[in-house]
C-alpha cells in the first residue's frame, strides 16, 4: 500500500511527493498500457498528469494505487477507441524497436485473458513481485498468486503453440 502520508503530501501538489508516487507506481501503469496494447510510455505520462490534476477527487488516501490503475485502464480504453488513421512513426533518435523475439513474447502476453494479462505483465515485464502487485492494485495476495500461476500456465502453452 502506498503510504497515506505520501498521498497527503501529494494532495498539496508537492512535486517531490508525486516523484515518489511515480517511482512506486509507474511500472504498474506501464504494465497496464502494455497489456492493453497502447503506447505505454505515453500512458504513464498521461496518467500521472491526470493524477496531478485530479488528486482532489481521491476519496481515500489508502486507495491511491487502485485509483491510479482505474485511470490508466480508462485512458487505455479511450486510446483504443480513437480511430487510428496511420500507424505512429518512431521518433527521430528514439531507441531501436525491440527485437522480434521481444515483440512476439509481448503479443503472446497480450493474448491472455484480461484477468491474467495485467498481473502477469506487471510480474514478467516490469519485475514487480506478487506482494508488490497486491499492494499497488488492491488485489489480495491470494488473488495475485492465482492470476500469476494460471496466467503463466496459459502463456507457456501459447508459446508452445498449444491451443
Amino acid at each position, binding site marked *: 500500500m502506498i503510504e497515506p502520508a505520501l498521498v497527503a503530501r501529494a494532495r498539496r*501538489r508537492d*512535486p517531490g511527493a*508525486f516523484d515518489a508516487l*511515480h*517511482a512506486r507506481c*509507474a*511500472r504498474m501503469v*506501464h*504494465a497496464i498500457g502494455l497489456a492493453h496494447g497502447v503506447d*505505454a*510510455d505515453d500512458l*504513464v*505520462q498521461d496518467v*500521472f*498528469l491526470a493524477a*496531478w*490534476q*485530479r488528486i482532489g*477527487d481521491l*476519496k*481515500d488516501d489508502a*486507495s491511491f494505487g*487502485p*485509483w491510479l*490503475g*482505474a*485511470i490508466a*485502464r*480508462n485512458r487505455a*480504453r479511450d486510446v483504443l477507441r480513437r480511430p487510428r488513421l496511420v500507424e505512429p512513426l518512431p521518433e527521430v533518435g528514439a531507441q531501436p524497436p*525491440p*527485437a522480434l*523475439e*521481444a515483440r*512476439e*513474447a*509481448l503479443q503472446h502476453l497480450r493474448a491472455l485473458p*484480461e*484477468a491474467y494479462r*495485467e498481473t502477469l505483465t506487471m*510480474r*514478467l*515485464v*516490469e*519485475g514487480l*513481485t*506478487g*506482494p508488490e502487485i497486491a499492494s499497488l*492494485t*488492491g*488485489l*489480495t495476495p491470494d*488473488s495475485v*498468486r492465482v492470476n*500469476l*500461476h494460471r496466467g*503463466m500456465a496459459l*502463456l*507457456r502453452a501459447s*508459446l508452445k503453440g498449444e491451443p
Partner: protein
Amino acid sequence: MSHDWLFDGGDPEEEGDRALLRALAPHRHSGPPPAWPVAPRGRWFAAVGLSLAAAAAVFLAVRVATTTPSGWGYRAIEGPGCAACVLAVGDTLRTDAATRVRLDVADVGLLDVAPGTTLTLAASGDGAHRVVLERGRVDALIVAPARAFVVSTPHGEVVDLGCAFALAVDDVGRAQVDVGAGTVAVERGGRATRVPAGARGGTRPDAPPATPRWQDADPGFAAALDAWDAGAGPLSAVLAAATPRDTLSLWHLATEPGVFERIVALEPGVLPTDEAAVRRGDDAALELLWRDLAASWR
C-alpha cells in the same frame, strides 16, 4: 517449501522461463516522471468551480444586507419584482412567467428561482434548512456541510451533500435533478439514490426515486432504464444497452440478479468484491464497489 519465483520474485529455474524474461525485459518502464505543472491545467470543472466560488463570494457579500434571523432575503434578478424582500418561515414564494428571483439560503448558499415556480420556506435554523418545491425550477449553489439543505418535492426529497444542482418539478410533481458539482441524494421511504456531478436523478409518483444516469447517457440506455423504473421494461434490456460509464446506474441496481455480473463484464478492472454481500445490499460492500467504479467515471 519450494521457492515460488513467480510470486515471491527472483529468477526461475527453467531455462524456458528465463528466456521469456530476457525477451520481455526491453519492454520494461524506465522513463522519468513528467514535468509537473506549476498550476493545475484549466478544465471545465475548474471553470465551474471558479464561477461557483465567484457566485459564493457575491452571495456572502449580499447576505448580510438581506437575510434576517427569521427569514431569507430575496430579490428579482429578471423581470418585475421585489428589490429587497424577506421570505419568512412558512411563507410561499410564487414567481410569475417573467420573473426570476435570487433567494439567499440562510448562510449556506443561493437559490435561483425560475419563472413559474412555487416554493415554500419550511424550516431554517440550527444548520438545517428546508424548502418545499411544489412546482417549477430552482438552481442551487450550496456551500454547507452535507444534509444542511433539503428540498422537499411532492414525491421525494433532494438532499444536498455539498454541491450545485438544478431541480425541476413538473405539473404532476415529478422532480428531475441535474447535478453540476458535488453530489446529491434523492430519498423516499428509506430508499436513497446517489447523484454525482454530471448525472441526473429524480422522483416518481408513488414509487422509489428514479435510477440515476448520466445527463449525456445514450438515449437507448436511458429509455430502457426509464422503462425498467416504470415496471414496463425488462432489466435485460438495461443490461444489454449499458456501456462502461453506465455502471453508475447499474450500481443502483446491484442487488438485482445479473447486474453484478454485468458490472464486472463492463469494468473487468473492478477490484474483487464480495458478490454475495453486494447482492444482499450490504452497505460496506456497496460502498467499496461505488468507490472503485467512481474512479472509472472520470
